[in-house]
């Protein structure tokens, strides 16, 4: 249904799609609140209906994108839908970026002590975007490659890893303070946590190596995880699944209240 465009046509389609998207968004924003609600509800309902019918209607063997597969009259449209929907996600990201720019521009213009964080946002975002575009060009210069390496590996990856590692310190401190045997439940939780932790590490496994196999800490840990933990988490998963289904139905049928469907 959709064929890749090459050369000038590619740029034409990109610009055309962007303009069409902007026009669509502007029109949508100009609509009265009530009309906008019905447009959004209709699009949501049709989108949900497509996937529901495609899943529930009887299937038969057919050719889909040149491959033999089981499907119905809606199945050939699944792949085009897969290709189209990321464009909507890209628009959502674009709107997010615009929103961030608006918010941080206001903070910079008001200038106070906190504005430095907004300046950091602009510097980081522009540097990362420019660095990435330069490095991913058809013939990147050594400077562009180095800049990308410094920004991505030197800054982003290290900062990301550092932020995540800090959690270990808080967890250790919190575990020390919180795990106190003040009641039967707390004692059970503590004993279970210690067994699972010991079963997870080599040192813990070594401690019980001389005991009969059924008393090995890793065996006890596996028993706890599969016989005690699994049923409990499965029950939670079933509850979550039913909850998700209910929320999905509410959104699909336009019953959900929120910024998109209500005042």
């Amino acid at each position, binding site marked *: 249904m959709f064929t890749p465009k090459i050369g000038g046509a590619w740029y034409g389609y990109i610009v055309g799609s962007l303009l069409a998207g902007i026009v669509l968004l502007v029109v949508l924003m100009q609509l009265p609140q009530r009309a906008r609600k019905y447009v959004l509800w209709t699009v949501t309902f049709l989108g949900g209906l497509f996937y529901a019918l495609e899943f529930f209607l009887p299937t038969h063997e057919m050719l889909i994108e040149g491959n033999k597969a089981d499907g119905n009259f809606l199945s050939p449209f699944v792949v085009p839908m897969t290709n189209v929907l990321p464009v909507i996600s890209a628009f959502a990201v674009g709107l997010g970026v615009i929103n961030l720019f608006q918010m941080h521009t206001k903070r910079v213009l008001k200038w106070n002590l906190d504005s430095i964080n907004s300046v950091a946002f602009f510097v980081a975002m522009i540097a990362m975007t420019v660095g990435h575009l330069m490095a991913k060009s058809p013939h990147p210069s050594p400077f562009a490659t180095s800049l990308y390496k410094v920004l991505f590996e030197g800054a982003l990856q290290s900062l990301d890893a550092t932020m995540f590692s800090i959690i270990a*310190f808080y967890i250790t401190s919190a575990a*020390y303070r919180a795990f106190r045997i003040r009641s039967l439940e707390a004692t059970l939780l503590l004993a279970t946590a210690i067994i699972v932790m010991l079963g997870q590490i080599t040192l813990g496994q*070594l401690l019980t190596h001389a005991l009969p196999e059924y008393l090995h800490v890793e065996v006890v840990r596996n028993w706890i995880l599969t016989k005690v933990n699994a049923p409990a988490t499965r029950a939670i998963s079933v509850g979550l699944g039913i909850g998700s289904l209910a929320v999905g139905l509410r959104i699909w049928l336009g019953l959900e209240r929120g910024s998109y469907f209500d005042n």
Partner: protein
Amino acid sequence: MKALRFLQTVDRRVIYVLLMLSVTAPFFLSIRLPMMVSPATQAFYNAIDALQPGDFVLFSSDWEAGTRGENGPQTEAALTHLMRKKCRFAIISFQPQGPKLAQDIAERLGKEYDSVEGRDWINWGYKVDAKNYLKGFVRDIPGVVKTNNKTEPLEKFPVMRGIKTASDIKLLVSITPSNVYQTYIQFVAGPLKVPMVVAPTSVMVPEVFNYLDSKQILGMMPGLPGAGEYEGLLKTNTKVTRFANSASFAHVLIIFLIVMGNIAMVMERRQSARSGGQA
């Protein structure tokens, strides 16, 4: 009494220093703790070991630098095994940093095991919206993926020969700190019966056990200890064992602190009871 109170209220900065020492000490000490392979890791290993040379594997690298300490060694171990087995594989990710991180590891290992990008493996890059993407992906891989991460068309790469739908995938490997693996189970492994293995971070292990127990996945490489066990099975000698020792020492410290705090609390209560409730 004062000492018992102190043991219950150790300053958090002291705990931070102790943790830092316990994590970094193994890097300067050559300790080799015997590694016992768990059934879950063994099953993961067996799933890859059962593959034939040329079999196509989908390698989902859904992690970012934040969890590199665990997911990095897991990726390295699984890719080493795939390259040794001469399997073809495609890297895909639903996390922005994922493709680059896996690419770096694959390029480095590729030099060692003569595994060439384009011929033996390919990087499909970052994709958005896993549920929607996989729904189309399972029916028409070239039609949905279209290009590699450098926007070159898939047709030009020998590694893609004969790969049309998800049924052509012989194994799905998911390295993840998130629940993306559940989406793979829902849309790929479940409906099309594609065998799947998962390498989660340690904190996710109890949750993933459900799917291992129900045999919806064949095996699991549980966090950093799992990567260490896998390294033992591969008989490679990298820094993973030292990483695993760090994790071991940190766990022991946490257990020690908890036990110490509780013993002090119980002793203080007894002393308090003996002295007529005056704490």
